[in-house]
């Protein structure tokens, strides 16, 4: 059972579902805010209410007296964001942070709901989406350039498979922004801090103008400055607290006081070497998949879309290297050199040296190994040539 709210539009009563009412109120509030300073604001709002009422009448009948939330959202979508042509309404900050999301953002209303402090919500945004609109939504949520978010995601996805899992999880969890209200909520205010500052300044100057008496004006100024200071201080404190918490968690996680394992100096660099090999094979497989559509001649046994195959390969390699990494981190935190940042670099170099020496020995003293190595080199050259070709074709 849903609560119904009765509203008056142009003197006629309509019954709306509660959520629908909220959406409508948010729309009208935002319209009224966007028309701030427009001499005809009240008239335009009345026109808009009039038109909404017309549309509501369209969905009602003798047997249906309540306007559903869905229908309210449809009507709002049909009305479109209220756009004032006055230059002041040209959404500040939008062009600066829009980036490739610009076309999507440009036609959308930034401030969604009343009060000016509408909470942003995370949505997936279909316009300009590449895969699932997750990066698009995140970019809108954080007010960042969508390309930057994509690059970050790609880096995280490749270097830690978790990025891909995260993307898939977000794709499942985060809803699409279906209505303009959703899209508005996804973008939030043009830029929350900018908006706060703008408002504060507006209030500040309006206050200044209204105080003819200098003493009064001074007092107003002082109060304004005090409020701004306090606001900044609170913000800084919150940031500091968050950073502190985060650091403590990190420390707690990575710095347990355990005695060193025996064999640490063998196991740790060896594991490092192994996971490096796995990583190299992973990159080579992905490249081979991109170039030839198969992994070194082995076709994947299913008909996934191409990008999903790449994701699959990376995931598989992540699964393989995960225990290696886990063991390695275990050794890392338990090693005698733990605090020394170059310890593991040194060991990797030593082990690489050992490996190169081993290969060199094999090459000299075993004809079979020599042959294999020659063939490997040949294959590698061919592979590189393929990569170069592919790149040239792009």
């Amino acid at each position, binding site marked *: 059972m849903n609560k119904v709210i009765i509203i008056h539009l142009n003197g006629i009563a309509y019954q709306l579902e509660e959520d629908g009412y909220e959406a409508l109120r948010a729309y009208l509030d935002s319209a009224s805010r966007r028309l701030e300073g427009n001499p*005809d604001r009240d008239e335009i709002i009345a*026109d808009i209410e009039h*038109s909404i009422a*017309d549309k509501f009448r369209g969905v009602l009948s003798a047997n249906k007296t309540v306007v559903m939330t869905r229908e309210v959202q449809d009507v709002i979508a049909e009305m*479109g964001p209220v756009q004032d*042509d006055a230059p002041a309404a040209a959404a500040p900050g939008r062009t600066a942070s829009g980036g490739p999301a610009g076309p999507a953002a440009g*036609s959308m209303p930034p401030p969604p709901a009343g009060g000016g402090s509408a909470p942003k919500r995370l949505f997936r945004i279909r316009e300009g989406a590449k895969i699932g609109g997750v990066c698009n939504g995140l970019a809108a949520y954080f007010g960042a350039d969508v390309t930057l978010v994509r690059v970050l995601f790609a880096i995280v996805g490749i270097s830690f498979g978790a990025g891909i899992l995260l993307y898939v999880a977000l794709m499942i969890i985060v809803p699409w922004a279906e209505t303009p209200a959703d899209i508005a909520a996804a973008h939030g205010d043009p830029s929350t801090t900018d908006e706060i500052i703008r408002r504060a300044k507006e209030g500040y100057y309006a206050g200044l103008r209204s105080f003819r008496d200098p003493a009064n004006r001074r007092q107003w100024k002082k109060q304004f400055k005090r409020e701004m200071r306090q606001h900044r201080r609170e913000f800084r404190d919150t940031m500091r607290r968050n950073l502190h918490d985060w650091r403590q968690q990190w420390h707690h996680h990575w710095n347990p006081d355990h005695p060193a394992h025996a064999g640490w100096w063998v196991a740790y660099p060896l594991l490092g070497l192994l996971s490096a090999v796995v990583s190299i094979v992973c990159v080579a497989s992905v490249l081979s998949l991109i170039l030839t559509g198969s992994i070194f001649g082995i076709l994947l046994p299913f008909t996934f879309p191409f990008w999903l195959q790449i994701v699959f390969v990376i995931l598989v390699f992540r699964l393989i290297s995960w225990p290696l990494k886990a063991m390695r981190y275990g050794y890392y935190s338990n090693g005698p050199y733990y605090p020394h940042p170059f310890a593991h670099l040194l060991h990797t170099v030593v082990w690489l040296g050992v490996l190169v020496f081993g290969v060199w020995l094999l090459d000299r003293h075993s004809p079979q190994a020599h042959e294999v190595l020659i063939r490997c080199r040949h294959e590698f050259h061919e592979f590189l040539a393929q990569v170069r070709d592919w790149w040239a074709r792009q």
Partner: protein
Amino acid sequence: MSINDNFPAIRKGLLEFLVLKIVAAEKVYVANILAQLSGTEFATQEGTLYPLLSKMRREELVDYEWKESEAGPPRKYYLLTAKGREQLRETNDYWQKISETVKSLGQVPAENSK
């Protein structure tokens, strides 16, 4: 990116001109204007149109009168003022000039390059 995304400013700027044209032909209310624009490159919504119309009325390009509708409450019908007609004529001329320019520019070099 479609070609449409390249010209939001042009579409926005031309909207007033088109509304003038539509209003010049007959007395219309907002739903008429929207219907005529829908399906064109200039399809728009009430949220854009009402503020635009109110601006045009402030500039005395259009005026409106209330008219009873067959069903429901009265509607605002918009009509062109003398000033609006003048503006429409000027804009029309200007538009002709622009489209001439667009057509004529680049003709000669294009043939040279062949």
